[in-house]
């Protein structure tokens, strides 16, 4: 007897400006705060060969001044009015975010509009941000154990095309080769208003906010929207395996990944694999945590997720389900054998109670994301950007609850047993 779980009831309003900019609003006046997220449909899976890391570098350049403002001015205006801002580059989008006291809503919209009008792309700013990005990569990849594991290391094992397989942080050689002309072309091609979604959540009045958005964004000229990159490739046949040596790693680790259904085109089957990922590796009640850590004591830690970046819904097809394990003193194949064994058991049938628990946990986690006004703008904006369907934010709990245990077991059979996979081993030692 499945329980009735709470459902979100976010107010969603949407409109499109004549220049093609898509807008979603989520008014909620409970606190005097607004969150603004602008998604551009360009990520590192859009980068051309020879320019690895360019989408991310370009995101940095978009903080170096805009049509009306010098470098640093926008940041000063936001922080100096009690807000905060950031940007991040993902496989399939780049997003610029700010969170502000609601009295600064118009300022936040103005700043995003000015960014969309154009960046101040100079050789000096480019040089500076190449250096900053290299230090970012040093912090997150080169100077720490398991840096880039698995988000940089796994795609070249899993995928064969440049778009899907390459390193989204970029090589230092490619970063150094970037020019101001590249940046101008990149802006012109990908930062058209029609290639963007603006999401605003929080303490706002919809009609007045629409007017502000029309005032500030309406004058930006429409440009051609670029076609989406062709990411299609067949799933691996059999097992693709690679090893990486990590001189800073104190123990061996591995990642196993499988292709999953098209998140947008086959939503229900995709959701079955999202539940499956949590049945296998979602927290301490999960199959693999109990088996690998508690029962067989093969691993020090395990993890698992959908997609490369942790959010199941942020990637288009092709995307993955991945399982990770850190396994000191145990051969990788022993761990993989136990993982396979658990997958076999799930495919043979999974109890409705277990799936119900996982669904309660997913629904609760979904609500948790909606607590913060900026995260709410981001979730709503991402669903609109990826699926033209911000309302998924309200529908998701019911959709997940309707999947059922049989379909989860079936998903294990179809996607984790019926297709090939990628295995990446991280081996301690060596010279990097």
């Amino acid at each position, binding site marked *: 007897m499945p329980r009735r779980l709470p459902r979100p009831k976010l107010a969603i309003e949407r409109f499109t400006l004549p220049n093609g900019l898509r807008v979603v609003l989520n008014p909620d006046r409970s606190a005097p705060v607004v969150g603004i997220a602008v998604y551009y449909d360009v990520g590192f899976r859009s980068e051309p060969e020879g320019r690895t890391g360019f989408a991310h570098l370009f995101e940095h350049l978009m903080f170096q001044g805009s*049509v009306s403002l010098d470098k640093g001015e926008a940041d000063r205006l936001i922080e100096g009015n009690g807000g905060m801002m950031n940007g991040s580059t993902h496989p399939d989008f780049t997003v610029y975010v700010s969170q502000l006291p609601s009295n600064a809503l118009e300022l936040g919209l103005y700043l995003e509009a000015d960014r969309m009008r154009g960046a101040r792309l100079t050789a000096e700013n480019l040089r500076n941000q190449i250096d900053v990005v290299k230090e970012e990569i040093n912090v997150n990849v080169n100077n720490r154990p398991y840096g880039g594991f698995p988000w940089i290391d796994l795609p070249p094992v899993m995928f064969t095309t440049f778009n899907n397989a390459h390193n989204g942080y970029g090589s230092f050689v490619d970063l150094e080769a970037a020019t101001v002309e590249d940046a101008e072309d990149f802006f012109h091609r990908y930062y058209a208003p029609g290639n963007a979604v603006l999401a605003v959540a929080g303490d706002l009045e919809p009609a007045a906010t629409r007017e502000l958005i029309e005032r500030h964004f309406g004058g930006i000229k429409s440009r051609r929207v670029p076609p989406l990159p062709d990411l299609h490739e067949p799933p691996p046949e059999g097992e693709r395996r690679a090893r990486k040596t990590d001189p800073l790693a104190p123990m061996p680790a591995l990642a196993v990944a499988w292709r999953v259904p098209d998140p947008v085109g086959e939503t229900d089957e995709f959701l079955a694999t999202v539940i499956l990922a949590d049945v296998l590796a979602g927290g301490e009640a999960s199959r693999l945590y109990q088996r690998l850590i508690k029962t067989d004591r093969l691993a020090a830690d395990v993890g698992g997720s959908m997609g490369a970046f942790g959010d199941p819904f942020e990637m288009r097809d092709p995307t993955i389900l991945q399982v990770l394990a850190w396994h000191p003193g145990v051969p990788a194949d022993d761990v993989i054998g136990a993982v396979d064994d658990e997958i076999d058991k799930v495919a043979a049938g999974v109890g409705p109670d277990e799936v119900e628990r*996982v669904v309660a946990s997913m629904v609760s986690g979904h609500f948790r994301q909606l607590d913060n006004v900026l995260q709410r703008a981001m979730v709503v904006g991402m669903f609109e950007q990826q699926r033209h369907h911000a309302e998924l934010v309200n529908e998701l709990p019911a959709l997940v609850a309707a999947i059922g245990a049989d379909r989860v077991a079936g998903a294990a059979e179809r996607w984790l047993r019926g297709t090939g996979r990628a295995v990446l081993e991280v081996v301690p030692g060596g010279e990097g």
Partner: protein
Amino acid sequence: MATKTGPYPLPSVGRPRPVRLPAVGDRTLPNGLRVLVARRPGIPRFEARLVVPIARADGGDGARMRVLTETVLSGTPRYSSKEIAEELQGMGGALGSYADAEQLIIGGSSLSLDRRPFLSLFGHVLREATFPPSEVAIERERIVQEIALLRAQPSVVANDALVGRLYGRHPYGRGTPEPESVARVQPAALRKLHAARVRPAGSLLVLAGDLEVDATMAAAAEAFGPWEAGGGQSDLPAPQITTPPSFLVVDRPGAVQTNVRLGGPALARTDPDYPALALAVTVYSGYFTSRLNDNIREQKGYTYGAHSRIEHRRMASQITVSADVGREVTAAALVEVFYELGRMVSLPVSQAELDAARRYVQGTLAMGIQTQSGLTSYLGSLVAAGLPVSYLREYPAALERVGVNDVLAAAHRYLGPSQLTTVLVGDAATVVPAVEPLGPVQVRSSL
């Protein structure tokens, strides 16, 4: 660029709408546990934090505390660790614990719908922890492995080295525990520690979220009332903070970056001059548009980011400045770190800088406590430190009264290069010769 016809005029920013603070229920149970309940609806969940002052002056090593932290939720006479995990999962909930040098903190959350069974399970698991030998054996081994992982992380190495330098043998100076000591911890020692220290007197439970205050208070009293009395506030002495003038270089051969850390004493939040110091630290490198971040990131490209913060422990507050900089620019970055400190202590900040820092601190505090988890954590850390709930209202008002001369005076007392000690974790072969002309250097190998 394509549409460059600006500049476009900046819109004006009106006055902020006042922040509404939640009503907070506040009650101390007969066994000494203080319970705060704050209603923050919006999403149908709530958050919980239990803060237990576990440290004592007569020792108890870090290893035992560490194993207790990882095993305190792992079994009772009624439930195995797996059953606890499954129960929580079914409530859309979680429980997890961590500890610092003086407190055990158990955090959790669940759907509001399950507030009663959640609180009941939480109380039961905490009171009746049995420390099953199999769980202790598994977690001991995992902690030893985790210590190996932590010590491979330069940020952890740097923090361990910094607190060691500041606090010496005081418990605040303990970094990551020794794996050998962890491996020796036995279930009986944990049961003893649990019986003596994991007790309600001096402890604090904060619950915030979509909750009715009175009903939740009653449910909390029911779940935690049976917790056997005992315990008490930590009696750690105040540490003697030392800030040796030499650079401590911790060698990580071949490291491509140097982790620069500066640390020194700071004012407690109860000090009338604290708001001025907090704003001085913010102007220096407490936010993105701060002086140091602007200098060494946005102007010079030496780092991905420079940060500073004030951390509060019960008996000491600490300023920490941090930046991970390219190996080859270590000395150049240090010069800027000291240059900006020198400016802070010898010249007043501008009124515009002060106003921006003030609005930033006020604004981010207001935004931080809008979420259930932010409110719960913030109330937990404030009240466990002995501050009143009204601090949420008083602190922004106190920030409002700070002037540029107050900032200069506070900086003068705490931000001088001679008032902070410096740790550099990096490739000693490159770093030592580069920084030697700047001051005396001490070198240590990485653990």
